[in-house]
């Protein structure tokens, strides 16, 4: 009985389809492995939603479904009132979804500035011909992309390395470049896949403030995959816990932290 009460707040619930992001009944299998099983939850505009779960729980797979890198076998993902299944993966950015990658997927030979400018790619239209001929409208767009990049470079204190190829930068700096690059299209939803991985103590503390600040400044919703429980609990408005591809808890951070199912899932795993 006590257990039932404790779980009431974190019980997975019917999906709010009016939310900014509504994941509804998403299932995805890799051969015999069910990476996502009937996953449903919603993220409100401007909210920070932590997504936790042991390794292999399906967090990155879920990100890849939202990015349209994977096609779920069942279920729908609705973003801003639109079903994502109707869009190709290169159309997702323009809808207002940006992301970082678990293994930092920067364009290694390009400079910091150019990486951030690629992040803003979807804001411009000029094609091969317009740019080869340097038509005035293409040149204008180019200036706009560059201004956008400069603003982000300043905001994320990357000025010193703006002209350096990112492959040469230390890891923590590369992660900051990736964050700046993701924000270049002014997304409505930012997907962060383990932004604290590989960072030291102080850097993780700084990251928590950074994530809050990003949300305060832009009102962007953030879906945050992290293993650092403290970080997730500190910054999130809502936490969703996955285990073996299923949602086992969804609610306010405090409630999810003390949820017996979550405790069991984490005790059962290596951590």
């Amino acid at each position, binding site marked *: 009985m006590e257990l039932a009460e404790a779980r009431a707040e974190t019980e997975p619930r019917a999906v709010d389809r009016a939310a900014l992001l509504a994941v509804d009944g998403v299932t995805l299998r890799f051969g015999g492995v069910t990476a996502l099983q009937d996953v449903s939850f919603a993220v409100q505009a401007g909210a920070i939603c932590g997504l936790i779960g042991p390794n292999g729980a399906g967090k990155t797979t879920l990100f890849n479904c939202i*990015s349209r*890198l994977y096609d779920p076998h069942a279920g729908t993902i609705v973003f801003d009132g639109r079903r994502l299944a109707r869009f*190709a*993966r*290169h*159309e*997702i*950015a*323009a809808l207002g979804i*940006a*992301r970082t*990658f678990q293994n930092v*997927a*920067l*364009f*290694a*030979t*390009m400079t910091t500035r*150019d990486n951030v*400018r*690629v*992040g803003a*790619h*979807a804001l*411009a239209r*000029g*094609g*091969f011909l317009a*740019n*080869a*001929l*340097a038509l005035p409208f*293409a040149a204008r*767009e*180019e200036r706009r*992309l560059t201004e956008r990049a400069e603003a982000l470079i300043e905001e994320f204190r990357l000025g010193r390395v703006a002209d350096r190829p990112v492959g040469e930068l230390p890891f923590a700096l590369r992660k900051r470049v990736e964050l700046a*690059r993701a924000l270049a*299209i002014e997304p409505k939803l930012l997907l962060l896949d383990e932004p604290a991985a590989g960072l030291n103590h102080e850097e993780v503390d700084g990251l928590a403030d950074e994530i809050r600040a990003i949300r305060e400044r832009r009102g962007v919703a953030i879906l945050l995959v992290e293993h650092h429980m403290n970080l997730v609990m500190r910054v999130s408005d809502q936490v969703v816990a996955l285990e073996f591809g299923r949602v086992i808890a969804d609610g306010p951070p405090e409630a999810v932290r003390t949820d017996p199912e979550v405790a069991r899932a984490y005790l059962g795993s290596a951590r």
Partner: protein
Amino acid sequence: MPGPRLTRAIATLAVFALAVAFPFLASGYHVYQGAQVLVLAIALLGLNLLTGFNGQISLGHGAFFAIGGYGAAILTAKLGVPYLLAVPLASLVCFAAGFLFGFPALRFGGLYLALATFALAVAAPQILAWKGFDAWTGGSSGVSLVKPHAPFALPLTTDQWLYFICLVSAALLYVAARNLVASRIGRALIALRDQPIAAETMGVNAALTKTICFGISALYAGVAGALSALAVGFVSPESFGLALSLSFLVGIVVGGLASLGGALFGALFIEFVPSLADQMSGNFGEGAKALPGAVYGVLLIVAMAVMPGGAAGAVRAIMRRTVGS
């Protein structure tokens, strides 16, 4: 000390000035060779957009060079199209051919693309020599065309006039490639090479961008082939074999991958080093005379050992040491 941008602008202008003066200082045959170098440089610019910037290997650009050459020859010699119109027309055909070829081929990517383009390079001379096309391509004997003379009674020899047509074309195509590479499209090309999934996530349409890039690169090869046909006055199947395609690849590597300025150096290399190798193998005595290929190979390896980033990489390294940081 001037900044790197200014230095580059000065260097570009100096090279251009030298190129303008060259046909008045050199003999007729050297002017003809100069035109060949410019033609090759155009093809290398295009292949470098594809391979250096976009990371797609083509072993078959000789085929697009051939389409450009035959296109110009057939248009001028058989259909009476003015040569200044025939060159752009032939290169548009090449763009279409590259786009259509790239569309299915790029789906496989990587080594499969290399194999598909390899097949193209092997097939091209055979198709051109095929009897069924005799009426248009002249079979194995090819097509002759009249070399265009300088108009308006300009005091230029035919070779000088053709040289200037090649020079203007190369300069324009160089500027277009520069613009492209410096733009969002150029960044998208590199992004697709470095990290394709992330690039798509940022809104780069991978399939379309890569296919158009293949088409553009074929277009450059087509312009080169068409100009070369005008300069030589003749096209025949055996000039467009696999060796030509491979020499383009050598040219962009020696010039420097993902560098446009290196195209000129790469073109000089593939125009002159093979005959240099011929001469050298002769100097090594009778025994080495049969081995120009081996000498060429050694020269190539030496070039790459001295300049691992190609000519452009070497220039960048020297600039860093003298100008910057």
